[in-house]
């Protein structure tokens, strides 16, 4: 490590540093739960509605409520406009977010219902799915949904030969020199520290991969701190 051509990060961060984070809970008053999460220039908004009766009826599960996630990037979230509406990528991210969150939420007390989670990205600078998952976890907690624990997400990866935490847009998709860049979004649960989601886009050796996972777990602790802080200091409930 450290031999490659990527010896210094563009924004001056250390390779294990996350971008500055900001979380806010209760941003949409009409929703049952809502939150925003920012890492650097990436912003995500999540809104939770439900539990409510699920229609069409054939999708209902008589044993448990179901979780339904919809992720989308706003047309103006990147420099060249994104065509609004579902596409292959947004459908994939909706599904993986749903799976990651399903491992902690418990909807067995609400049969035949659905909990809808809407994730929107008003500004994108790589790491939108992890920002979305962080926001969604906050919004679910805010909505009072029974959860075994929280989840925190972070993107880790490899740029040329250097292992890095929290890739930005340049590192994720502009950098193509040397061995190129590898992107690994990781979701870690807050108490048991289990991995709820793991994706990998690019090439990485087994040893390096193990190292990046350790880096991700450490970074997720920082993310969790920001999340817990946002929940405990929500203005709506904090009084006296």
């Amino acid at each position, binding site marked *: 490590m450290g031999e490659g051509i990527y010896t210094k990060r563009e924004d001056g961060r250390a390779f294990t540093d996350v971008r500055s984070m900001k979380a806010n809970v209760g941003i949409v008053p009409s929703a049952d739960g809502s939150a925003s999460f920012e890492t650097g220039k990436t912003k995500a908004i999540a809104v939770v509605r439900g539990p409510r009766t699920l229609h069409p009826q054939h999708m209902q599960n008589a044993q448990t409520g179901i979780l339904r996630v919809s992720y989308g990037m706003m047309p103006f979230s990147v420099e060249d406009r994104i065509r609004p509406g579902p596409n292959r990528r947004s459908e994939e991210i909706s599904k993986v977010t749903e799976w990651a969150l399903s491992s902690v939420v418990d909807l067995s007390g609400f049969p035949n219902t659905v909990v809808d989670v809407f994730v929107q990205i008003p500004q994108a600078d790589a790491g939108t799915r992890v920002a979305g998952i962080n926001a969604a976890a906050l919004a679910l907690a805010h909505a009072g949904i029974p959860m075994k624990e929280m989840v925190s997400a972070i993107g880790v990866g490899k740029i040329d030969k250097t292992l890095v935490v929290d890739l930005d847009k340049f590192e994720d998709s502009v950098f193509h020199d040397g061995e190129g860049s590898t992107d690994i979004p990781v979701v870690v649960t807050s108490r048991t520290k289990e991995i709820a989601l793991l994706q990998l886009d690019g090439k990485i050796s087994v040893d390096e991969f193990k190292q990046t996972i350790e880096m991700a777990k450490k970074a997720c602790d920082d993310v969790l701190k920001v*999340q817990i802080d946002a929940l405990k200091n929500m203005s*709506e409930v904090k*009084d006296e």
Partner: protein
Amino acid sequence: MVKKGRQIVVPGEVVATGNEFLPGDGAYRDGQDVVAGRYGILDIQEKQVRVVPISGAYYPRRGNTIIGTIVDITFNGWLIDFGGAQNAFLPVAEVPRYINRNELREFLDFGETVVVKVWDVKARGIDVSMKMRGFGKIEGGMIIPVNSNKVPRIIGKEGSMIKLIQGATGCEITVGQNGKVWISGKDGDSEIATKKIIEFIAENIVISGLTEKVEKMIKEMGFKTSGIEIIAENTDEGSEE
């Protein structure tokens, strides 16, 4: 080990350690630990550890008063939409008068609004009753929506806030714990004034000394507050059931 009560806890937070503690609503046990299973305020009574919700959708509990709309009529009762996960069922037997089973619509028709009491809460839905004083069909007045988590504050300690407003404006106020407030007065002006006061409370829920502020507002509106007996001062923690 046990954490101090009345603080905000997040899901996955270990709130007590030791076999003597019992996980109640919103908490679960994992080995020695009692863990918060939802976001809310920690409530420890004796060895019972609960997490009381402070946000999110309304979950009905036995004894709650709710206001809802008739959405369906079955052969032996009515289905009421009250904004929860499921509809509430009002059986014919829980209505305090004789009903012809062939003519259920004569008593309650689609779209009509009722005040009912939660009788039984099951995973599949809730049963409600009308068989007590103060429950029944709503006619006249207005219904305003509020956040269901703010209802305890609107009611005030032992109903102090409601009594204060009722005494001043002369309007009848019925608060549904599902976040619906029914105001019924003799004229539209007093109803609108009452509505404004309740909306003010809902918006300023975290302000300390809310009761005084509401009193001041009532006076500014030209109503009298003297002669109204107020049970509790400024600490409007609300009537938790």
